[in-house]
């Protein structure tokens, strides 16, 4: 429900400015990890907060607020990605591969993981973001994306297998198709 100009939050919520500062990293990071594009992630995050401001009166609790923000950002990211038919601005093939094998917590590996995610379909990619950035369990992801839990589990399993295989091929020096 859209309201005209609700400027105040409900009693259980902090002021809007505090909400933005408190949740900006969560909202922005969903966009950044999904899109790998800083300015687009910021624009979408801004839209989400402006939408929140219009709907503040409908937010009932801090938990509701967090879920609302996650869901709004998730939807905006997937919509934007579908509209622009953009998988990833950085192609995996254009990235220089390190000559040495990656170590655990290697920043190169983190970058490769991010780029490998860019090759996943939108819904799989968002599930990976929600599972490993937001630490949501499959039930919560299913509720957020309005899909069956079984679909979340199988999609996550498949997405991880695809990413692992892709990164393994890179390690072995093969083409990362």
């Amino acid at each position: 429900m859209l309201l005209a100009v609700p400027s105040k939050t409900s009693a259980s919520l902090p002021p809007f400015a505090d909400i933005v500062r408190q949740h900006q990293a969560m909202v922005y990071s969903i966009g950044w990890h999904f899109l790998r594009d800083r300015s687009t992630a910021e624009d979408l995050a801004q839209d989400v907060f402006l939408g929140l401001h219009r709907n503040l009166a409908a937010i009932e609790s801090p938990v509701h607020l967090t879920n609302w923000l996650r869901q709004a950002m998730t939807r905006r990211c997937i919509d934007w990605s579908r509209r622009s038919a953009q998988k990833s601005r950085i192609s995996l093939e254009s990235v220089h591969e390190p000559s040495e094998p990656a170590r655990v917590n290697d920043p190169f590996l983190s970058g490769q993981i991010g780029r490998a995610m860019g090759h996943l379909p939108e819904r799989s990619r968002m599930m990976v973001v929600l599972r490993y950035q937001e630490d949501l369990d499959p039930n919560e992801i299913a509720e957020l994306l309005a899909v069956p839990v079984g679909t979340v589990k199988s999609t996550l399993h498949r997405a991880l297998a695809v990413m692992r295989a892709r990164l393994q091929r890179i390690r072995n020096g093969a083409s990362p198709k």
Partner: protein
Amino acid sequence: MNFDEMNFEQELKNALTRKEPAKWFAERVIRQVEPLGQRPRPSARLRQWASLAVAASLMCGVFGVVRYEEYRKGQQAKQQLMLALRITARTLDNVGKKLKE
């Protein structure tokens, strides 16, 4: 190196840690939703001067209209007087001609 499941999941968590947006992000969002009533208003003194200026302009306008109306009426009276004088002169001229005849 093999990506066993546990290590890979840990690597995913490491790669997907939350990041902060640009420093100005929150301020930009907050500024956009700031209602007009909360935006800085002109000082009381400035508003007083603006009111005086508006009142003075209105008075000048009214005064100008009144003066113009007076000027227009004066011109109209002058033209009527000149016309009356011309008619009188012509009448006297005709009377004079008839007396000579």
